């Protein structure tokens, strides 16, 4: 692998849940080129799917004419996934903790929590009028080796 980001992929999908499998396939193929174990790939996939679910549902509000852009960048130390929708964003500071007793039986509110558990870093960039970008980062096992 070269010094610069040569292994990058960008996928733009129509705003439909059916399209998620297709982005998952790209992630699967991309992780086959590198050194993550199966378990890591599974949970990373789940984190990405949660971000896609949110982009399609909350961001693009199920509007089939909108799009979700996903970029994959394979850096020497990390695999980074960005999920960008065309929505109005939200306040990331007020997200309730789903493990608090009062929230335990709520039927929703666990997506971002799972993302944070399964990735090494999750940045959410919600910019009014410019959509929400969820940035998922996983450190590669051989990083620094």
């Amino acid at each position, binding site marked *: 692998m070269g010094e610069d980001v040569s292994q990058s992929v960008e996928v733009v999908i129509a705003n439909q849940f059916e399209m998620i499998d297709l982005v998952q396939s790209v992630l699967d193929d991309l992780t086959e080129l590198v050194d993550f174990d199966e378990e890591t790939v*599974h949970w990373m996939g789940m984190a990405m799917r949660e971000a896609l679910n949110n982009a399609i*549902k909350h961001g693009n509000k199920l509007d089939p004419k909108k799009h979700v852009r996903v970029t994959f960048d394979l850096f020497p130390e990390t695999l980074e996934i960005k999920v960008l929708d065309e929505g109005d964003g939200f306040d990331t500071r007020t997200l309730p903790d789903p493990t608090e007793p009062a929230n*335990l039986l709520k039927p929703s509110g*666990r997506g971002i*929590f*799972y993302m944070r558990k399964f990735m090494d870093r999750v940045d959410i960039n919600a910019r009014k009028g410019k959509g929400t970008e969820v940035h998922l980062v996983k450190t590669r096992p051989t990083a620094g080796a």
Partner: protein
Amino acid sequence: MKTTIRTAGGVAILDLKGKITIGEGDVALRENIEKLLEEGKKQIVLNLAKVSYMDSSGVGELVGTYTTVNNRGGKMKLLNLTEKIQDLLQITQLLTVFECFSDEEEAVASFS
């Protein structure tokens, strides 16, 4: 998701198969539970052995149906959690909420 419903010792057992995710299976589960409750079947076991994938919406759906069944005076328990589903429930501290079994007879017997 595909669901097969059978009865054992007066308990309704739902064998779920496939994905329970935001686009798939989540609504089907709710509808099946609703039907059982309407028929007066309030002792329910969800067999998750063949559930290949579940996302946060699927987990939410488990929680939602659990609450529904409780509110209607019934009980819903889980059977045969895969390792991955167990992890998902563990992380969100839902293993303390659900009664989980790895043996069907035990699950059925636990209602009486």
